[in-house]
């Protein structure tokens, strides 16, 4: 399913045989996501009982000059709607990535570890889920004017990453 796929017309799915060996559907941000791919993924989940996994649930992808475009979560929304199932999310804010890192590199002292990112819902929540410090930069998704809920408050905020060197 990776990369561009040919568009299928609805009638092409009549009698289409789903590959029974596909047991996992993995969703990430995909510029080649189409109704055809969504249908194939839907059939794997609905007819094969394939497990539904998402790399992340990012709502937007910032492409610079202030413009944002729909992110992975927009691709997931369609699959959640038609399958009626929620995916297992392996990416931030799930602490799985942190566990993989400490497995490979050994335990980290949480008091001397910081997660720096531009998105509260993923980066900052991830840091809090892992019990480490958090830093928010305003060069991507988050804007100063947005503010945040008390529980989401990062330990540090910077206009840009290089400001880290100034403090």
């Amino acid at each position, binding site marked *: 399913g990776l990369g*561009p796929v040919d*568009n*299928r*017309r*609805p*009638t092409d*799915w*009549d009698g*289409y045989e789903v590959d029974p060996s596909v047991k996992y559907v993995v969703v990430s*941000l*995909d*510029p*080649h*996501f*189409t*109704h*055809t791919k*969504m*249908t194939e993924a*839907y059939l794997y989940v*609905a007819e094969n009982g394939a497990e539904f996994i998402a790399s992340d649930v990012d*709502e*937007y*992808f910032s*492409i*610079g*000059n202030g*413009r944002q*475009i*729909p*992110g992975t*979560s*927009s*691709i*997931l*929304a*369609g*699959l*959640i*709607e*038609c399958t009626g199932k929620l995916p297992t999310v392996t990416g931030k804010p799930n602490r799985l990535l942190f566990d993989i890192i400490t497995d490979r590199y050994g335990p980290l002292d949480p008091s001397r570890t910081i997660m720096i990112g531009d998105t509260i819902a993923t980066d900052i929540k991830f840091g809090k889920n892992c019990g480490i410090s958090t830093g928010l930069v305003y060069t991507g998704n988050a804007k100063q004017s947005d503010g945040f809920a008390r529980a989401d408050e990062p330990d540090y905020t910077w206009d840009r990453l290089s400001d880290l060197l100034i403090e």
Partner: protein
Amino acid sequence: MNFLDKYDTFLFDCDGVLWHGNTAIEGAANVVTYLLQNKKTVLLVTNNGTKTRSILLKMVHALLGIGDFPSENMYSSGIATTKYIKRKIKPGEKVFLIGSPGLKEIMDESNIPVVGYGPFEPRLFSEYAATKLDEKVKYVVGSFDPYCNHAKITHAFLYIKELKAEYIASNLDKLYPLSPTRTLPGTGSILAGLNNSLNQQPLVIGKPSPIFFEIIADDFNINDKSRVLMVGDNLQTDITFAENVGIDSALVLTGIVKPEDAQNRSNLPVQPTYILPSVGNLLDSDLLCYKN
């Protein structure tokens, strides 16, 4: 009193009421013919946005044996959406269409300028930084579209978010029943990502939206709602539609709701005015037998 005494305008859902796929439901042809002969207004009202008027007329001819059914009495959510836009769109304005070949044909017939329709070139994310939007696009219409992809959704997102285009959908059905053995993701699933990113739902024209009825009432000069009956098989679309509009409804048990589902009437999430085993019962002598 019978149904013909009480009502002058009959709105029929199609699938599950008049026919199943390619087979007519028993009694359907008789009912429609009889109503037309008795000078009743008979309107077919389907949420399927992909079928053109000519395809629906062919189905009426082939399945019900009626060759002269008036084409202006045919309403799909695609036809209603097009009429809604036609009433509002100004000269020079355009529609960004996420839709099927059928809907494109209906819009072309109404001389509505459409962009975005059909196969859409995927974009690399970095390309969007330089994407220039067509300032003439004032409406984004969402409907069933087998060509829909991330690039099309992203363009629709930008038209609505940056150019403040009005966002309209023909319907939001999660699934599209291709055949009795296979369903595909439907319009609702196609548009879910766009709605999610916008944090906004579209204005839906199809049932159960009362806008669908406003368009019909306008076309047919319907002033007395007490003499209009909606006949359908779907509680969420047909019966809720009747409730939203303030007209009587008849639920038939030949489609989505089966006789066993209707056994305990108080369990139904929406209450129709009448419950009929099938559409043929509209010709029976006493409508009180079927009163819910």
